[in-house]
């Protein structure tokens, strides 16, 4: 047997973790110098951080680039990278909900699936000469957000409305938004459609830059759509308390799975082809997109956690009674964490769909949905660094090295990795019950830089 490739793939994991360390370090570098443009003065750290992120991006991009048939990372590695990026997004979202806010959720995978199918439907239709997907999803999300915010404004003036009544109001608002969006689509799409291509011959808008823009919008709208669903679902269910919440979210995942299996019969989406799986999704995800979206999620997550809202989220996990006695609106805080976490999952789904090019409901089965849960437990509940490292390590080890190694033994052996990793999880829980990494690296450790520093704050802020 030739073990060199296996050894190499193990080396790869070490390199990947070192790379993540470097990325988080460079994002968190503080220079402490200021430049003055006009009357405003800026900390130049942000420029250094941005430059560092660009370098980090190009290093991998270069490794993926083919030079006369040789590239440092092959297509298989690229696939692992994309999977790892999406897994980071999903798992960070779940860590926000469970690790930081203490609400045990099994629904994360469902929101991932919603994001995947929603984004895929948009680009699939677009490349087949139908712009309705984008128009309906986009206007639905925008109108829906406006209506929900308006209802929220109206309700906050009322005294303690029972949860179910306010939920009903929001639901009616959301359905109305959906109805409006479908009609907007009916009116607007005919104007756009002639410029799009179809399966036989691509049109000018269905190629190149326009398609990239559509892809970006599709992923963002899919994320917001998942977030909207999580808002409606979370509103009545989050008040149940963590254990019941876990069961309800499990139910949610199963419902989503069932809807996917019947998407062509129960739901009006014949192009999703139900249990047979949706094919022909344009493979638009590149390293730039995967890296970009992952970075976006990491930055949002870190800024949220390191803000006063993050402290509020943590305080709810620690002690709901005490948080409430401080004046924290516990219900809204839980909802915020849940919606933000689902947003990340939705975005990840959109990126995943356009990497894999084929969506089958099997990929969103709730059993597979335990993966992000295992990752955040592995990495440490309430540790962002742990989640990121564990997600990359998990994908590269489980789908990379271990599969390769077991594949050398026999063709069936790779399935054994699903026995090996629960065992390794058990082992870890015995050795390090708080997870692999209990610290944060660089960027994730640093406090937010206050926009305007007062003298009083100077002493207290934590640089690192």
């Amino acid at each position, binding site marked *: 047997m030739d073990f060199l490739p296996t050894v190499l793939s193990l080396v790869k994991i070490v390199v990947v973790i070192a790379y993540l360390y470097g990325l988080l370090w460079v994002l968190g570098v503080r220079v402490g110098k200021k430049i003055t443009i006009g009357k405003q003065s800026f900390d130049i750290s942000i420029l250094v951080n941005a430059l560092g992120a660009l370098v980090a991006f190009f290093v991998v991009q270069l490794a993926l680039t083919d030079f006369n048939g040789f590239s440092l990372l092959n297509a298989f590695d690229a696939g692992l990278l994309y999977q790892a990026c999406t897994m980071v997004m999903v798992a960070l979202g779940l860590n926000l909900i469970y690790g930081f806010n203490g609400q045990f959720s099994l629904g994360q995978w469902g929101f991932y699936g919603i994001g995947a199918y929603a984004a895929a439907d948009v680009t699939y239709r677009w490349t087949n000469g139908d712009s309705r997907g984008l128009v309906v999803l986009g206007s639905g999300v925008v109108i829906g957000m406006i209506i929900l915010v308006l209802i929220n404004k109206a309700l906050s003036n009322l005294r303690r409305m029972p949860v179910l009544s306010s939920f009903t109001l929001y639901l009616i608002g959301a359905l109305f938004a959906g109805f409006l969006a479908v009609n907007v689509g009916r009116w607007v799409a005919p104007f756009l459609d002639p410029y799009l291509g179809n399966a036989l011959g691509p049109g000018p808008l269905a190629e190149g830059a326009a398609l990239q823009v559509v892809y970006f919008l599709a992923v963002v709208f899919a994320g917001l759509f998942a977030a909207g669903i999580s808002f409606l679902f979370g509103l009545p269910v989050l008040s149940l308390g963590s254990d019941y919440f876990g069961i309800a979210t499990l139910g949610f995942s199963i419902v989503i799975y069932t809807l996917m299996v019947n998407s062509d019969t129960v739901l009006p989406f014949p192009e999703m082809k139900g249990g047979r799986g949706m094919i022909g999704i344009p493979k638009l995800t590149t390293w730039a997109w995967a890296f970009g979206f992952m970075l976006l999620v990491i930055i949002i997550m870190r800024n949220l956690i390191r803000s006063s809202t993050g402290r509020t989220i943590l305080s709810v996990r620690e002690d709901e009674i*005490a948080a409430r*006695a401080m*004046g924290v609106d516990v219900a809204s805080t839980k909802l915020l964490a849940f919606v933000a976490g689902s947003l990340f999952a939705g975005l990840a789904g959109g990126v995943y769909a356009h990497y894999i090019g084929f969506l089958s409901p099997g990929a969103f089965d709730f059993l597979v949905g335990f993966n992000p849960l295992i990752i955040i437990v592995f990495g440490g509940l309430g540790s962002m660094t742990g989640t990121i490292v564990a997600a990359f390590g998990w994908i590269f080890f489980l789908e990379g090295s271990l599969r390769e190694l077991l594949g050398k033994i026999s063709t069936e052996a790779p399935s054994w990795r699903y026995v090996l990793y629960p065992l390794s999880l058990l082992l870890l829980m015995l050795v390090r019950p708080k997870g692999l990494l209990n610290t944060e690296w660089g960027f994730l450790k640093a406090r937010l830089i206050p926009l305007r520093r007062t003298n009083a704050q100077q002493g207290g802020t934590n640089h690192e």
Partner: protein
Amino acid sequence: MLLEVKDLHVYYGAIHALQGVSFDVKEGEIVTLIGANGAGKSTILRTISGLLRPRSGTVWFKDTNITHTPPEKIVQAGISHVPEGRKIFAPLTVRENLEMGAYLVNDKAEVQRMMERVFRSFPRLKERINQLGGTLSGGEQQMLATGRGIMNKPSLVLLDEPSMGLSPIMVEEIFRIIKEINESGTSILLVEQNAQMALSIAHRAYVLETGNITMSGTAQEIADNPRVKEAYLGV
């Protein structure tokens, strides 16, 4: 009248925990509720701060009916609740815990001023400003909980057993500071097992027995009452 509680009935499922409780707290007073374990003292505080809903009865604060006001609005109105068992946020530092106490205060400078004031009362907290709440000793945690309770400049503080689990010296210390907080203009509703200490700093007192108020008067009157002496003061 700062706080007026009228005929409060509170249930936990079928348990009738408060059976028509009425009392009041005037501006500038320390009022103490004494009673045996399970009498319903904590229940009263939780109802005032909006954590529990009464079946019937009303709570008035500064001439506003707050019976059905959500907790965060009650905090904003100026009632601060230091719950039983301290409930410190373990993974947050002392500073962050105190900042949580000023959760609804938006003015950063004001928060800083309040923190200085807490540190004047509790110098020991200042020494431990960056220590995690969970690693403080029991007494320090009680100091932190009490300090956190005054961070939002309340006009009424509800204190639930501030002396629980503290050494005699620490109890003296905490009560001295409670008195100090009161002298700087904050009214206090104090629930205590340690009736002797509570009566020594309070202006007025109520005795609670299985969900009913059975006695009321000035702290001196209550302390001198033979039944109270026997049941709560152990003389």
